[in-house]
C-alpha cells in the first residue's frame, strides 16, 4: 500500500475536539457511502463517532429535485460523544437542492463546501431557486469554499477507461479525499474498502481510488485551506470495536440469543420501513439454521411466530408502527396462550403511514395498551444502537422466563444510526436457560401449572410423548388450561397474567442514575433519545445545575426502584419524541407532577433545546 501515501503538506495542523460534518447531495451522488466511509475511517483511527443518515422518502426522486436529496451527518471526536451533533460544522453540498434543504441547519459561520459545477440553471430551477444562491447573498454568513468538484474529478480521471457518467459517479470519492485532507485522516481504509468491494472490476477500483487521491491532492495543492485540522483519538476504553447500527445489533442479538439458548431462531416478518433490514440481514444466516419467513402480511408473520414458539423455537418478528397495530390480535393470543416471543417495533413517524423514513417514539402506549382487554406484555427499549444487541438478548430472556410476548421498541434513528461498539467478552454473555418438560407434571400434564417463583407456565413442545395438550384464545382454567367461563377463574387468570409480568422485576436490573441521587431535577428518558439527553444533562451539570439523568430501558415492568429514584428530586422532566407517553405512565403510576418536553419533528432532539429546557426548570 505504499503507493497510497501522499506527501503531507507543510501546512499548519490545528487540534480540535470534535467536528460535525454533513454530506448532502442528490440520491444518485452516493452521500450515504461517503458518510459511511468517513465515519469508518474516523472510528478506525480511534475517534468516537455517531452518525445520522437521512434518506429521501422516494426510491429515486428526479435527479436534482428537493425530495431527491440524501444526507449523512457524522460527529467524530476526541472525547466521548453520544449524538451525531445538533448542527453541522461543515456542510458539503453537492447540488443546489442539497444546499436548499440543508443550509439552515449549518452552524453560523460554518464551513460550506460547494460543488459549483452542479449549480446550473436547470438544477437551480429544480431546487426552486429563483436566483443563484452563490451570488445573491444566501450564503454570506458562512465560510464558503466553492469548488468545481465534478469537473475537477473528470479532469483527474481523464485517463480512466469509463464513460463520462461512470466517471462522474466517483466524484463523491473526490470530495471524500478533500475532506480527508482537511481533517487529516488516512486514505488507506477507504482504498482497502474500494479494493475489496470492486476487486473484480479493476477500472472501477482505479476510478474511485484515483478520485479519492485527486481530491486529497487538490486540497493539498490549492490554497483553499489555510490549515488542516486534527481530531485526536478519543480516550476510549480499550477493547475490540466495531461500528454498528441498531438494526444490525438486533440481528446480532437475535443470532446470539439463539446460540445462548442453543435453539433454532425463526424470524417471520413482512417488509416495512425502517424494519426491513432486519429481515434482509437475518436471511444471510441460513448456515446457522436461522429460518426467515417473508410472510404475506404482518398478521401472518405474528401467527407464524406463535406457531414457531408453540413448536419450541425462539421466535421473533419485526415491524414498524402500522404493522404493530396489525399484530395486536395475534399478540393478544400469544399472551393468552403464554407463549414466549419477541416483537420488534422500529418506530417511525405517524399516525397512519405518516413519514415512514422519519423517526419518532410514538408507539409506547400502543405497545402497552393496543390490544383488547387487560393484556400485559413485557416491553424493553434499547438506548443506543449498540444497546440493541443486549436488549434483544434480554427481550428473549424475559420472554422465556415469563412465558410472555416481549416488545422491543427501537426507532428509525437507532435503527439506521451508527456508533462504535466495544464488543462484549463472549464469556460474559449468560446462557439463556430453557427447560422443556419431558415428564408429566401432575400425573397427567397440566399446561397451566405455574412455576412458584416466576409464575410462568411450563413450555412442553409437540413431539414430546405424553405431554399432549391443547391451548387457545378462550379463557383458560387455572392449571388444566381447559376452556373456562368460571367468573373467579377469569379474575385469577387476569391477575396471574399481570403479576407474572411484574415478577420479571426479579431479573430486571435496578434503574441507574447518572449524577447525584437527589437534586433539583431528574430527567427521565427512554429509547433512542439517550445520547441527546445524556449530553444535555452533562452539559447542564457542567454549568452547575443539580440535574441527573435516568434512562429507562425496561418499560414494562419498570425496574423495582423507580419510585425511590423519583423521590430524590424536586422536579421531573420527561423529554420524548411524542406527545407525552411515558409521561402519562409515570404520572399515573407514581403521581409525580412530571412535565414533558415533547417534540414530533420526525427528528432526534437537539442537545441545545434540551439544555434550554433543563435551564428553565432548574
Amino acid at each position: 500500500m505504499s503507493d497510497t501515501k501522499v506527501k503531507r503538506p507543510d501546512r499548519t495542523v490545528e487540534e480540535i475536539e470534535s467536528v460535525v460534518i454533513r454530506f448532502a447531495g442528490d440520491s444518485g451522488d452516493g452521500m450515504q457511502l461517503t458518510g459511511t466511509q468517513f465515519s469508518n475511517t474516523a472510528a478506525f483511527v480511534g475517534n468516537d463517532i455517531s452518525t445520522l443518515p437521512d434518506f429521501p422518502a422516494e426510491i429515486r426522486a428526479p435527479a436534482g429535485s428537493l425530495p431527491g436529496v440524501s444526507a449523512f451527518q457524522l460527529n467524530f471526536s476526541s472525547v466521548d460523544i453520544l449524538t451525531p451533533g445538533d448542527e453541522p460544522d461543515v456542510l458539503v453540498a453537492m447540488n443546489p437542492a442539497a444546499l436548499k434543504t440543508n443550509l439552515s441547519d449549518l452552524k453560523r459561520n460554518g464551513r460550506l463546501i460547494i460543488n459549483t459545477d452542479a449549480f446550473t440553471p436547470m438544477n437551480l430551477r429544480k431546487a426552486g431557486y429563483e436566483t443563484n444562491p452563490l451570488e445573491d447573498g444566501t450564503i454570506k454568513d458562512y465560510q464558503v469554499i466553492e469548488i468545481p468538484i465534478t469537473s475537477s474529478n473528470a479532469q483527474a480521471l481523464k485517463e480512466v477507461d469509463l464513460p463520462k457518467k461512470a466517471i462522474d459517479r466517483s466524484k463523491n470519492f473526490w470530495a471524500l479525499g478533500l475532506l480527508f485532507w482537511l481533517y487529516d485522516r488516512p486514505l488507506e481504509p477507504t482504498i482497502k474498502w474500494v479494493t475489496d468491494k470492486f476487486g473484480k472490476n479493476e477500472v472501477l477500483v482505479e476510478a474511485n481510488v484515483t478520485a479519492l487521491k485527486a481530491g486529497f491532492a487538490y486540497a493539498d495543492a490549492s490554497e483553499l485551506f489555510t490549515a488542516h485540522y486534527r481530531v485526536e483519538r478519543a480516550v476510549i476504553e480499550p477493547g475490540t470495536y466495531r461500528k454498528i447500527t441498531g438494526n444490525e445489533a438486533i440481528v446480532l442479538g437475535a443470532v446470539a440469543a439463539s446460540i445462548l439458548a442453543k435453539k433454532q431462531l425463526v424470524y417471520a416478518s413482512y417488509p416495512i420501513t425502517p424494519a426491513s433490514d432486519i429481515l434482509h440481514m437475518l436471511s444471510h444466516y441460513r448456515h446457522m439454521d436461522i429460518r426467515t419467513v417473508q410472510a404475506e402480511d404482518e398478521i401472518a408473520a405474528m401467527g407464524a411466530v406463535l406457531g414457531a414458539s408453540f413448536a419450541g423455537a425462539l421466535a421473533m418478528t419485526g415491524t414498524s408502527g402500522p404493522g404493530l397495530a396489525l399484530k395486536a390480535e395475534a399478540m393478544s393470543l400469544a399472551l393468552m396462550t403464554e407463549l414466549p416471543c419477541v416483537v420488534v417495533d422500529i418506530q417511525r413517524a405517524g399516525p397512519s403511514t405518516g413519514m415512514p423514513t422519519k423517526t419518532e417514539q410514538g408507539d409506547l402506549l400502543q405497545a402497552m395498551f393496543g390490544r383488547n382487554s387487560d393484556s400485559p406484555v413485557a416491553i424493553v427499549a434499547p438506548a443506543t444502537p449498540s444497546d440493541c444487541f443486549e436488549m434483544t438478548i434480554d427481550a428473549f430472556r424475559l420472554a422465556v422466563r415469563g412465558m410472555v410476548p416481549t416488545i422491543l421498541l427501537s426507532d428509525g434513528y437507532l435503527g439506521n444510526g451508527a456508533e462504535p461498539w466495544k464488543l462484549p467478552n463472549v464469556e460474559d454473555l449468560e446462557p439463556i436457560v430453557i427447560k422443556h418438560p419431558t415428564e408429566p407434571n401432575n400425573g397427567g400434564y397440566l399446561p397451566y401449572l405455574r412455576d412458584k417463583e416466576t409464575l410462568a407456565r411450563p413450555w412442553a413442545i409437540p413431539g414430546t410423548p405424553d405431554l399432549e395438550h391443547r391451548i387457545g384464545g378462550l379463557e383458560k382454567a387455572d392449571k388444566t388450561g381447559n376452556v373456562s367461563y368460571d367468573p373467579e377463574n377469569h379474575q385469577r387468570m387476569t391477575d396471574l397474567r399481570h403479576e407474572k409480568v411484574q415478577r420479571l422485576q426479579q431479573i430486571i436490573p435496578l434503574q441507574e442514575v447518572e449524577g447525584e441521587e437527589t437534586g433539583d431535577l431528574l430527567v427521565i428518558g427512554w429509547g433512542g433519545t439517550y445520547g441527546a439527553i445524556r449530553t444535555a444533562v452533562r452539559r447542564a451539570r457542567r454549568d452547575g445545575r443539580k440535574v441527573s439523568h435516568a434512562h429507562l430501558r425496561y418499560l414494562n415492568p419498570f425496574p423495582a426502584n423507580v419510585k425511590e429514584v423519583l423521590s430524590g428530586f424536586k422536579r421531573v422532566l420527561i423529554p420524548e419524541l411524542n406527545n407525552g407517553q411515558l409521561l402519562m405512565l409515570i404520572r399515573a403510576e407514581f403521581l409525580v407532577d412530571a412535565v414533558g418536553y415533547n417534540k414530533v419533528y420526525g427528528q432526534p432532539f437537539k442537545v441545545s433545546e434540551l439544555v434550554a429546557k433543563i435551564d428553565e426548570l432548574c
Partner: protein
Amino acid sequence: MSDLKSATPVLTKKDFTSDQEVRWCPGCGDYAILAQVQKVVPTLGIPKEKFVFVSGIGCSSRFPYYMNTYGFHTIHGRAPTVATGIKVANPDLSVWLVTGDGDALSIGGNHLIHALRRNIDIKILLFNNRIYGLTKGQYSPTSEQGKRTKSTPMGSVDYPLHPVSTALAAEATFVARTIDTDTKHLTATLERAAAHKGSAFVEIFQNCNIFNDKAFEYFKGKDVKADRMVEIEHGRPLRFGSENEKGIRWNGKSLEVVTVGDGAEESDLLVHDEQASLHAPFLLGRMDYPAFPIAIGVFRAIERATYENLVDQQVETAKASREPDTLRSLLYSADSWEVE
C-alpha cells in the same frame, strides 16, 4: 428431517380421544368428521405426540379440543399462519388444520391461499356448511346468492366463492372434496390427504342442522344422489347415474353430460387425471347441479418440493459452504478494530 414413521406403537381411536366433552349441537355433521379423523390418524404410523391440530374460530374450529394430540385453537382466520410457523420450526411434525367456510374463506382467505402456494406440508380440512355457525347464522362466502340469513333478511347479494377453484388457483398440489355423511369416501380422502407430501386441501360438505339444515340434500339426498353426484377417480372415466348410464364428456368447448350408449361411448368420456394441468381439475371442481352432477374425490394430486424441504435444502447448502458461527465469530468480524 427424521422419519415420521419410525418405531410407532399400535394406536387406536381411543388414543386420539381427549377427555373434553364434545360440544357441538346434537346432530351436527362435525361429529362424523371427528370420528373419521380419529379413526384415520392412528393408522398412519405416526407417533401420537407428533400430531398437531390447529384451528381458527368457528364451531368446526373447536376440533382440536377433542383430539388427544397437541392442539392450538387460534384466532379467526389465522390458523394457516400458525400452522406455517409450527411446520417451519419443526418439519418433523404432522400438522393438521381444521377450519370453516367463514374462517378459511372470509377473514382467512389470504392466509389460506398463501399457505397453499407455498406448498407447506399441512393438511387442511375445510368444513363447509355454507353458513356461520358459531355466530349463529349469518351467510358465508360459500352461501348461495339470495340466501336469507340473519344478516341478509332480503337475501345475500354476493356471488359465492368455490373453495376448490380457490385452492386450485392458489396452486395447491392436492385438492379434494368429500362429504361428512359418506363415511367410506371421507375416510379414503383423509388417507389420501395424509399420504400427500405438501399442502393438502380437503373441502368437506358438512351439515349444520341448526342454521343451514339439509344444505346439501339437493344433490346428496338418498333419492337424487346417483343422478346428481359423480365420484371422480384417477384414471377412470367420469360415470354416474342410477344405472351408471351417464357420463361427462369434453366437447371441445365445455363439459357436457351424455348418456353412454345414447350418442356417446364410454371411450368418449373424460378420463380423470389428478396430475393434469390445472384446468381439468378446475373444470370438474366447478360442476354444480342442475347443469352437472357435483363431483367428489381428488381433483388434483401432484408432487412438488415443499416449502420446508426447500428451506432445509438452503440450510444444508449454506452449512456446507460456511462454518457455523460461534458467539465470537459472530461478533468479532473483519470490520472490527482494536483500541489499546
